[in-house]
C-alpha cells in the first residue's frame, strides 16, 4: 500500500516535471543553454557540458536534457522528504507530517525551482548537488562507510560549476562526521579544488572570462548589487521559504550550513548573476526550514503553506520563462542549407546551436562562399545582393542564395 502511494506520488511529480520541461521548451534554446549543449569551453568546468555534448547526435537533444534535468530536480523532493525524517535527527516525536510537507513544498513550490527545473543550465544542477550534500549531513552512516565516494561526488561537483567550490564547508563537515582525520579530510576536500585550479590554468579563455566578470561585478554599485541579491533571495524561496529558511539557518548551530550559505550569498551579491542563480539558494532555505520545524511541533505549518502557495504563484508569474521562441531558431530554419552562415552584429551561441553549418562573423569578402547572411545589425559594407534573395516574414534581415 505504501509502495503504491509512493508510485502514485512519483507519477504525479513526473507529470509536473514534464510540464515544466515543456514550459521551458516554448522559448527554444537560449545562449547559455547552447554553451553547454555544444560543449563550448567557458565559463564552467567541463564535466556536465561534456556529458551534454555526448548527446549532440540526438535530434531531440534539447528535449532529452530538459526532461532529464526537470525529472531530477522535481523528484529530488524525495531527498527532502528523507532529510526531514525525524528518526535521522533523533527527534523523539514522530509525525510532524504537516511540517515535512511544508518543507517539501519549500523545494517544489520555490519559484526558482518552478522556472528553472526544465532549463538546461548548471545552476539547478548545483542546487541538486547542494541538496545531496545537505542530505548527506544527516546520513553519517554513509560518510562512515564511503568517504571516497563522497569525495568523488565532490570532485564531480566542482567540475560541474565553479560555484560548487562554495560548498566546501558542507563537505568538510560530512567527512569529519564520518570519521576522517583532518589530513584525510583536507585531501578529500581540497584535492579536487587544486585540480580545478590546474584545469583553469589550461583554459585561458575561462580564466579571462572569470576576471572580466569579476571586474564587472566590482564596478556595479552597492545599491544595484543589493537589489540583485534581494531579487534572487525572494525568488529562491518564493519569499515565505526565503524568510523562514534564512531565519532557520541563522539561529541553527550548524556552522557548515551557515558558512556555505554565506559564501553562496556573497557570490550572488558581488557578482552580476542572472535570475536563474536564485535556485542555488533554494536548498539552503529548505535546510533552514527543517532547522525551524524539526526541534518541536510547530503550530503554523499549514497557514505558512497557504502563504507559500500564494506567494509562489505571484512570484512565478512575474519571473516566468520567455514563451516566444528565440529568433535564431526561426531564422536558421528558413535559412538552412549547406554552406557558411554569416552574421552581422553581436549574436549568442544559440545561433551556433540552430545552425548545421559553420557560423562566422560577417565580412563582405566571405559572401562568395556563404549560403546565408543574417544582418542583426546593418551589414556594412553592404554586399552585392544580386544572386541573393531576402527572406520575408522574419523578425530580422536574412538573405539566402537564389
Amino acid at each position, binding site marked *: 500500500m505504501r509502495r503504491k502511494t509512493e508510485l502514485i506520488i512519483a507519477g504525479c511529480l513526473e507529470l509536473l516535471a514534464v510540464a515544466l520541461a515543456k514550459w521551458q521548451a516554448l522559448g527554444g534554446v537560449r545562449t547559455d543553454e547552447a554553451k553547454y549543449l555544444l560543449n563550448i569551453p567557458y565559463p564552467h568546468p567541463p564535466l556536465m557540458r561534456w556529458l551534454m555534448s555526448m548527446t549532440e547526435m540526438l535530434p531531440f537533444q534539447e528535449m532529452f536534457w530538459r526532461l532529464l534535468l526537470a525529472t531530477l530536480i522535481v523528484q529530488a523532493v524525495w531527498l527532502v522528504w528523507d532529510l526531514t525524517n525525524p528518526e535521522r535527527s533523533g527527534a523523539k516525536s514522530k509525525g510532524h507530517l504537516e511540517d515535512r510537507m511544508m518543507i517539501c513544498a519549500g523545494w517544489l513550490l520555490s519559484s526558482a525551482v518552478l522556472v528553472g527545473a526544465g532549463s538546461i543550465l548548471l545552476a539547478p544542477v548545483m542546487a541538486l548537488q547542494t541538496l545531496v550534500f545537505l542530505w548527506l549531513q544527516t546520513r553519517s552512516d554513509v560518510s562512515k562507510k564511503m568517504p571516497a565516494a563522497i569525495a568523488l561526488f565532490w570532485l564531480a561537483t566542482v567540475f560541474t560549476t565553479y560555484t560548487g567550490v562554495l560548498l566546501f564547508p558542507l563537505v568538510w563537515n560530512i567527512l569529519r562526521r564520518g570519521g576522517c582525520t583532518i589530513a584525510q579530510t583536507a585531501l578529500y576536500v581540497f584535492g579536487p579544488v587544486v585540480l580545478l585550479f590546474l584545469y583553469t590554468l589550461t583554459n585561458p579563455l575561462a580564466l579571462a572570462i572569470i576576471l572580466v566578470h569579476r571586474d564587472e561585478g566590482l564596478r556595479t554599485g552597492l545599491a544595484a548589487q543589493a537589489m540583485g541579491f534581494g531579487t534572487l533571495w525572494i525568488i529562491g524561496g518564493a519569499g515565505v521559504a526565503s524568510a523562514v529558511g534564512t531565519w532557520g539557518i541563522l539561529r541553527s548551530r550548524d556552522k557548515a550550513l551557515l558558512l556555505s550559505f554565506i559564501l553562496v550569498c556573497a557570490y550572488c551579491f558581488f557578482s552580476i548573476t542572472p535570475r536563474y542563480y536564485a535556485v542555488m539558494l533554494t536548498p539552503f532555505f529548505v535546510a533552514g526550514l527543517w532547522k525551524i520545524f524539526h526541534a518541536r511541533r510547530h503550530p503554523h505549518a499549514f497557514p505558512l503553506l497557504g502563504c507559500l502557495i500564494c506567494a509562489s504563484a505571484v512570484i512565478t508569474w512575474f519571473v516566468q520563462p520567455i514563451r516566444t521562441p528565440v529568433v535564431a531558431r526561426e531564422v536558421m530554419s528558413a535559412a538552412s542549407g549547406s554552406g557558411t552562415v*554569416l552574421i552581422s552584429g553581436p549574436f549568442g551561441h544559440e545561433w551556433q546551436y540552430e545552425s548545421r553549418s559553420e557560423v562566422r562573423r560577417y565580412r563582405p569578402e566571405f559572401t562568395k562562399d556563404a549560403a546565408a547572411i543574417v544582418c542583426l545589425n546593418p551589414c556594412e559594407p553592404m554586399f552585392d545582393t544580386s544572386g541573393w534573395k531576402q527572406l520575408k516574414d522574419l523578425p530580422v534581415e536574412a538573405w539566402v542564395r537564389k
Partner: protein
Amino acid sequence: MRVPFSLQMAIFITVLLIPGVLFLCQIWRLHPLYTDSSVRESVRTSMTDVAAREGWLLSDMLVTGVTADHVRLHHREHLRGADREFCVMIALADRSLHSCDEKLS
C-alpha cells in the same frame, strides 16, 4: 562489502593524479602566457585581430601552446553534429596564420 579506507584513499589519489599530471603538462606548454605580461598582451591582441579578420568566434579558439613568437590554437566550430576542427598557429610578430605542420623560424 566494505572497501577499506586505505584502498578508497588510493583510488581517490589516483583519480586526482592522472588528470593532474595531464593538466600540468598542458600548463607547461602555456606558461609564457602566465609568466610574461608582454607575451600575454601580444597573444590577446593577436587572437582578437585574427578572429575579427577570419570571422571566427573567440570561444571556438582554444590555446594549446604559447612561445615568445607564436601561439598554437585548436580551432573548433561548435555546431550541432560533427564539429570541424583544425590546428593553426599565429605568428605574434605579424599575426599571420600558419598550419601547425609548418616550422616557424
